């Protein structure tokens, strides 16, 4: 991911890695599964392009995995390279926030007690 945004003109790269957490609201999580709507990739591209247009970025990269993930595995990674760290942080934060709110990806969480829950539903 770092190579994807490696850019000699950039002074700072901010990244965010979303990983599978072993608990959610006090309940022990054992596994996660992500599923995506066919338009997800296009929506992700639009989110990235919007950030690239609104921030002085040198490079932007975003990646979201789908399917079954184990505890601790990275589900989503975003990275933004800019000349200065303040812009890199702001752009990176906008990128992950917009991604989470607009890209049609669903997260199915499985708990130790055998129960399962779609995140964002409750």
């Amino acid at each position, binding site marked *: 991911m770092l190579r994807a945004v490696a850019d000699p003109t950039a002074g700072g790269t901010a990244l965010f890695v979303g990983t599978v957490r072993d608990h959610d609201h006090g309940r022990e999580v054992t596994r996660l599964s*992500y*599923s995506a*709507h066919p338009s997800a990739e296009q929506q992700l591209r639009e989110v990235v392009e919007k950030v690239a247009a609104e921030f002085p970025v040198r490079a932007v990269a975003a990646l979201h995995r789908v399917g079954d993930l184990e505890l601790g595995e990275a589900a989503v990674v975003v990275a933004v390279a800019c000349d200065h760290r303040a812009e890199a942080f702001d752009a990176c934060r906008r990128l992950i926030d917009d991604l*989470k709110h607009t890209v*049609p990806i*669903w997260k199915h969480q499985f708990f130790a007690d055998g129960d399962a829950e*779609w995140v*964002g*539903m*409750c």
Partner: protein
Amino acid sequence: MARGTIRYWAAAREAAGLAEEPYDAVTLGEALAAARAKHAENQAFADVLRRSSFLVDGQPVGSRDPDSVALPDGGTVEVLPPFAGGSAGGRGGSP
């Protein structure tokens, strides 16, 4: 009346117990009402429908009133439950 397909995703699909079912209605509002009636005893289905956003032939319905959204013949209505980040007002539980 227009005929087409309602496609359910993620939590909606799980609640409906099926991936697709036909619609036979003039507006999106009518099609959804018919689906609710068909799954009347299914509380989970009603819950997820209430929180979902919709596409008609790929176009987001957004905040338009479903009763004002005419359905095309041979079209596809898609039912999208809230995304992981809690887009449609659902409380986002993800990091």
